[in-house]
């Protein structure tokens, strides 16, 4: 049984704004074991990034409120002081962000930025730290690391910058790596390389990965378990295979259906889920997806709990629909065929 590194229990994150209270995360629970990759999928505003940043303590602010628990190796990170949280960041949990160009300080050399991360958490002299930096760059696949270590970020290409970011995040051997949309700003060809790299490093460093994206295609290969988030809630949670072969949420069907496919007959229009995500200040009553769901019925006015309705006990979803009905009707949405339902 792999070591349970992270247990998130009913996490709620709210921000007080001039317009009202934004319920960015409204009750999210999941676990993360060592050696595993957890994918968090959702559109902009679903709360996936806020969840990730909260794990790192980066959402702490005068205007934010937290509820629930974030147990990292048994310790509730929501209760930990700012100073202590600082020690966790980088040493226990590392994070990489979406845009590597702006995420690196432009006036310091790459090597200096890696060394800074190392020396914050470990007592090690500059030379040894720099050697480690060079090795890290080698591990993330940057050619000529001995000379590149003294370059500035603007001298690196986009893919290389993201590799450098990964090197920084892993420099202190954290047990959890959180990757927030790591490939969104990169070319498609580089995307695959970066995802592969993350997967490989996870094994090399014996850590766990949380991979956040809006693109199901990105997590299909590497994730062991996937959480689908919508309007601040987890709406479906399953092992990857189960999610793709037996998706239980109409929202998930919509996501699967909107992936352009080369291996199917071309439909007349690319599918999209109609409507827009709801305001996080004024959530709809009941199921948050109801206004956009083609299969909604009157029970949906009551918010469904996250429960298991199918065989694999780890496959949870938030939908009142009958499992048989779902399996019968989801085909058209997912297949991307003519825009009609049964």
């Amino acid at each position, binding site marked *: 049984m792999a070591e349970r590194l992270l247990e998130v229990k009913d996490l709620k994150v709210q921000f007080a*704004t*001039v317009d009202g209270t934004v319920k960015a995360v409204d009750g999210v629970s999941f676990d993360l074991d060592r050696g595993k990759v957890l994918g968090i999928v959702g559109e902009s505003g679903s709360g996936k990034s806020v969840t990730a940043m909260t794990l790192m303590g980066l959402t702490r602010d005068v205007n934010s409120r937290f509820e629930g628990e974030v147990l990292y190796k048994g310790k509730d990170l929501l209760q930990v002081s700012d100073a202590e949280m600082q020690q966790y960041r980088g040493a226990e949990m590392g994070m990489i962000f979406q845009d590597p160009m702006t995420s690196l300080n432009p006036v310091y050399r790459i090597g200096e930025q890696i060394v800074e991360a190392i020396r914050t958490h470990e007592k090690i002299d500059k030379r040894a730290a720099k050697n480690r930096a060079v090795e890290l760059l080698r591990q993330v696949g940057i050619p000529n690391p001995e000379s590149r270590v003294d370059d500035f970020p603007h001298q690196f290409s986009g893919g290389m910058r993201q590799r450098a970011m990964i090197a920084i995040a892993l420099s202190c051997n954290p047990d959890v790596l959180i990757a927030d949309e790591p490939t969104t700003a990169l070319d498609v060809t580089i995307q695959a390389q970066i995802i592969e790299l993350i997967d490989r490093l996870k094994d090399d460093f014996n850590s766990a990965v949380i991979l956040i994206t809006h693109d199901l295609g990105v997590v299909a290969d590497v994730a062991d378990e996937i959480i689908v988030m919508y309007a601040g809630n987890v709406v479906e949670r399953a092992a990857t295979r189960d999610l793709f072969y037996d998706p239980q949420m109409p929202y998930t069907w919509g996501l699967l259906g909107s992936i352009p496919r080369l291996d199917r007959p071309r439909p007349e229009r690319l599918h*999209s889920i109609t409507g827009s995500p709801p305001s996080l200040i*004024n959530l709809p009553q009941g199921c948050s997806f109801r206004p956009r769901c083609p*299969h*909604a019925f009157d029970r949906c006015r009551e918010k469904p709990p996250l429960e298991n309705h199918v065989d694999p006990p780890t496959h949870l979803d938030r939908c009142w*629909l009958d499992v048989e009905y779902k399996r019968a009707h989801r085909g058209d949405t997912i297949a991307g065929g003519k825009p009609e339902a049964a």
Partner: protein
Amino acid sequence: MAQQATETEFTLDTAAELAAHEEPEAIRGRSPWYLAWRRLRRNYVAFFFLFVFIVVVVACAFAPVYAKHVAGTGPNTNHILENVKVNGKETPVVSSGGYIDPHTGKLCPTSQSGCKLVASIPIGPTWFGAGGKFVLGADQNGRDIAVRLLYGGRTSLFIGIFSSAICVFFAVILALVAAYYGGWADFTITRFFDVMFAFPVILLGIALGSALAINGFHHFGINIQSGSIWIPTLIISYVLVPYIGRPLRGQVLSLREKEFVEASISQGASPLRVMFIELLPNIASSVIVFFTLIIANNILLETALSFLGAGVQPPTASWGTMIADGQNLIVTRPWLSFAPGLAIIITVVSLNVFGDGLRDALDPRAKVKVSH
């Protein structure tokens, strides 16, 4: 029971029906102007100071009314040989001077050291003791300070506001042309800015001010006489153009690279259209903020130039010339310099605070606690 979908697109009746029954709050798109206005509305301090500024402007606009009905005299009328009844007592408007003690402002018994010789001493503030005449006192020429203050305000405000308008107008055009066309246009305009930047603003103002003070400006079909307040106005607008033009050009340059410009051009938009309909609205918030803040700056610049003698020419009143006039008498009649100074500070602070508030509303980032 689940309801069937119909043979249409995904906007199915069920969803539409349910949606019709209650209004789920979708995220409403709001224009940035609306958002900015909302932010500004909450800023009571900014609005208070805007109000103060408006009060100043209105007061100065009513200068002739005050002159006629309250003070009974004009800004340039000398009353040097006259008397006025203050609280019943006959007092000369301007009395002869003597040695004055700087500590007390009073006459020294003898010419002890530390006492300054002052030629003539005008009357101090009467504070309505003389029925509205010389409320703030008189200057060495026997002119009513309060009246001059209001008329001076007219001058300084006129120059400040109009010079800003002209300056911003030309700066915007130059910035748009330079950034849009690039190439030679950009090169020339940037070089022009560079050369103008080489001169300290005040020296350039002095240079132009003194050069034009003698004969006025008679070029390009424009004829302005040497005493006109259009001379300082034009000088100040000219001198400040690069200070607005260069940052605006930078902004337009970065906008120019954005896709919406490319899209517009590829749809056949003419250069004028791209410049004024695509680019200009996007720098509008900067322009508005600049305009407000530069009025403040120009008022200070005008008063400085006038103080030095290279701006407004006597006998026209300006807050700057008044401070210069009051310099010698600061020991006995500090109000001569204080009043215009305070007027300047109040006006400029109001503009600065409001301008700051505008800038915050249009581009917020401050870390402020939101209390709920």
